[in-house]
């Protein structure tokens, strides 16, 4: 409301008087951008009087930096009714001002824009400070936090006189002159006078007495830093805002240290004939001291606010006990391995003496004191973790990590990632810090994923069974037919006038064997169709290949496919799930058969090879079909990719997830002979 000045003139209305009391610049412009109202703060800020400003277009009066002319901004302001941001404008005297501006748009009853009110504040100085800060932060972010700078105010006037004389004597290239005449630079250093120094300056350069620092710069300026002084002078002459470098400086005591040196030439100082020098000691010693000062605080802050549970353990009792045992010649590692009572003792010897917020939550307690004392209660489910952790420390390792379970104080058992570090410094103090990350969600998600994968794999197996129905029926039929025929023949021989018992005995023996054969086939099929949690057992790859071949024998024969097994003897056993790995082999062999079914290939053959690989066993399945189109090779293992008209495209993706789960790799390529070649690896049980 106060901004309303409908007259557009420099009247004496209440509104204008009010505006003049405001420290911020406020002006009003109409839709065309013409200034209609201009308060006293605007006059001060921009250097234009009310009379000069009213009626002028704001962007003519206060030119924006080229980069800031932005029609979109105006459009956005009109669209949304407001805009806030920074503008860089040129004032009446040519100064560049950074203005933090706020626009609000006023409309009439019909929604037409009447005027835009701009409130502005000069943030030029703030911006420069911000930029300087940003620059220094670039390298010295931490140092700036850690320590204050020493500031000097230097009387530059004597140097100004020297330079004017130098120019009068015909020297035009000051830089070359300084470089050629170090004595001249020394003379400038002697001419410059410290007129003020802050507390940090006294602490850094002096001996506690400020007046002794108010003198020329010679004691502070080692010769190796002469070029820095020369460059500072050149920067001042060149009207640079500042000059920053790193250079050695000297204290009154003669200690030379590395300084971050900043010479600043603010216009006010130049006018007074002075310049400002800021010095920060960046030598290792100071940095280390500062680090030390801050590390304690930082440690506390980190400890208490880390989003993982942290427990600080007092290990002194344990260390004393171990040292005593070792002194007595005991094998502590062996005791840990073999003596359950010793482990119980350890769980009582190590005590929690500090915990953070996350630990309270994890262990289900409200006060830190609830967790203080022996660590035993947390480890009632899995004390073995502490045994391995301590063994790692005895071996001289720097830390130990494992997934384990802890018992909380409110009776839960939580899956966690346990991590203990044994840094020598802390360990010497008898302190170790343990972190726990709650893995509940991850473990649950993994379990769910495994269930889904198992379901998927089973669905795929059943789909494979479906594809093999005819073959399976034939396979089961075979022993059943034999049993029936043997039985009938037996009855015939028994019903003869003179029963041939020997003949019947043979027939019966065959019937028993056939019944077993049928049962085995049913067992194999049931193994494939029944849901079961994946298990890990030691398996022979060659036996797996032979079992899968047996399963497919009838199908292979029915399709006229020759199967060649090329299995290396004496392969190391692998660790895996029998059903899943058979599924992979069956899938790949069925795939091969299907790939060849569509071809007129005279010789349909599948070769399965096994051989020792780097750290396990490699299995290859090669067919004599047409191979893969090159563009399909990359996506074969993707879910729902299929080249078969009625395929679901899950077979190969399941093969891959099974092999991945087993820590192996699966790959597809075209064989040198032209057919498809699938290969996968499985780690030997002995390898990591």
């Amino acid at each position: 409301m106060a901004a309303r000045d409908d007259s557009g003139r420099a009247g004496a209305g209440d509104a204008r008087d009010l505006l003049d009391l405001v420290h911020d610049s406020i002006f009003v412009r109409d839709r065309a951008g013409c200034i209609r109202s201009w308060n006293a703060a605007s006059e001060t800020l921009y250097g234009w009087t009310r009379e000069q400003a009213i009626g002028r277009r704001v962007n003519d009066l206060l030119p924006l930096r080229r980069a800031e002319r932005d029609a979109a901004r105006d459009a956005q302001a009109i669209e949304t009714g407001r805009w806030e941001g920074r503008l860089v404008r040129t004032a009446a005297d040519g100064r560049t001002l950074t203005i933090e501006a706020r626009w609000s748009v006023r409309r009439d009853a019909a929604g037409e824009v009447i005027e835009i009110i701009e409130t502005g504040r000069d943030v030029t100085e703030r911006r420069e400070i911000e930029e300087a800060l940003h620059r220094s932060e670039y390298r010295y972010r931490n140092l700036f936090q850690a320590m204050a700078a020493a500031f000097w105010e230097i009387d530059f006037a004597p140097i100004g006189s020297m330079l004017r004389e130098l120019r009068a004597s015909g020297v035009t290239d000051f830089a070359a002159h300084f470089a050629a005449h170090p004595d001249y630079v020394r003379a400038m250093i002697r001419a410059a006078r410290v007129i003020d120094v802050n507390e940090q300056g006294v602490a850094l350069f002096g001996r506690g007495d400020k007046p002794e620092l108010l003198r020329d710069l010679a004691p502070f300026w080692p010769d190796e830093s002469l070029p820095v002084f020369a460059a500072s002078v050149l920067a001042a002459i060149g009207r640079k805002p500042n000059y920053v470098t790193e250079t050695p400086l000297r204290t009154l005591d003669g200690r030379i240290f590395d300084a971050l040196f900043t010479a600043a030439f603010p216009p006010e100082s130049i006018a007074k004939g002075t310049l400002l020098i800021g010095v920060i000691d960046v030598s290792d010693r100071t940095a280390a001291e500062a680090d030390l000062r801050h590390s304690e605080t930082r440690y506390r802050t980190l400890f208490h606010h880390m989003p993982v549970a942290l427990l600080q353990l007092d290990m002194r009792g344990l260390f004393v006990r171990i040292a005593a045992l070792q002194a007595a010649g005991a094998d502590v590692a062996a005791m840990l391995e073999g003596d359950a009572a010793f482990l119980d003792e350890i769980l009582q010897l190590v005590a929690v003496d500090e915990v953070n917020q996350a630990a309270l939550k994890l262990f289900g307690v409200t006060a830190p004191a609830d967790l203080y004392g022996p660590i035993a209660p947390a480890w009632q489910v899995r004390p073995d973790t502490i045994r391995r952790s301590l063994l790692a420390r005895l071996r001289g390792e720097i830390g130990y990590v494992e997934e384990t379970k802890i018992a909380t104080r409110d009776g839960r058992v939580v899956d966690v990632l346990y991590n203990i570090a044994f840094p020598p410094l802390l360990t010497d103090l008898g302190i170790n810090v343990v972190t726990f990350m709650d893995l509940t969600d991850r473990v649950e998600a993994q379990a769910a994923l495994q269930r889904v994968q198992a379901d998927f794999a089973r669905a795929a197996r059943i789909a494979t069974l479906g594809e093999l129905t005819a073959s399976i029926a034939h396979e089961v039929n075979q022993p059943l037919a034999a049993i029936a025929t043997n039985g009938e023949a037996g009855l015939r021989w028994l019903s003869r006038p003179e029963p041939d018992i020997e003949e019947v005995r043979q027939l019966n023996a065959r019937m028993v064997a056939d019944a077993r054969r049928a049962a085995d086939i049913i067992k194999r099929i049931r193994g494939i169709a029944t849901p079961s949690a994946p298990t890990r057992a030691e398996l022979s790859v060659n036996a797996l290949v032979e079992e899968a071949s047996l399963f497919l024998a009838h199908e292979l024969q029915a399709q006229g496919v020759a199967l060649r097994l090329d299995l290396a003897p004496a392969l190391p056993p692998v660790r895996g799930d029998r059903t899943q790995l058979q599924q992979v082999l069956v899938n790949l062999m069925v795939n091969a058969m299907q790939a060849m079914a569509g071809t007129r290939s005279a010789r349909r053959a599948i070769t399965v090879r096994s051989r020792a690989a780097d750290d396990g066993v490699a299995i290859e399945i090669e067919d004599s079909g047409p191979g893969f189109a090159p563009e399909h090779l990359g996506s074969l293992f993707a879910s729902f990719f299929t080249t078969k008209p009625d395929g679901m495209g899950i077979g190969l993706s399941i093969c891959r997830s099974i092999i991945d789960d087993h820590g192996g790799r699966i790959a597809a390529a075209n064989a040198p002979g032209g057919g498809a070649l699938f290969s996968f690896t499985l780690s030997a049980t002995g390898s990591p």
Partner: protein
Amino acid sequence: MPQVSIIDDDESLRGALVSLVRSFGYGASGFDSAEQFLAAGGAAGFDCIVTDIHMPGLSGIELKQRLAAAQDTTPVIMITARSEPALRERVRDSGAMCLLTKPFEASELIACIEQALVA
């Protein structure tokens, strides 16, 4: 005594068939493949051939075709565990006398053999 040859790669079924045929008073010899049967002298000396269709190597149908090509008219009875109509047609085309689908009754097989011996 009429002689019957039994060709089947399934050892148990082959033994059962030999025993069954003998229990009816015929002579019977078993072969585990068409190749073995041919190598042992083929149809000579046999009045009837009972053969499985799906076997490693030569199939029962291929055996019948070879015999036909050699002007051998010994009647052939085929047995199979499969039941596709197309197979039935191929068996008929091959000139086989009977097709039995496993499992079959002993009486069906004997009826086929008797029919073959009459022909």
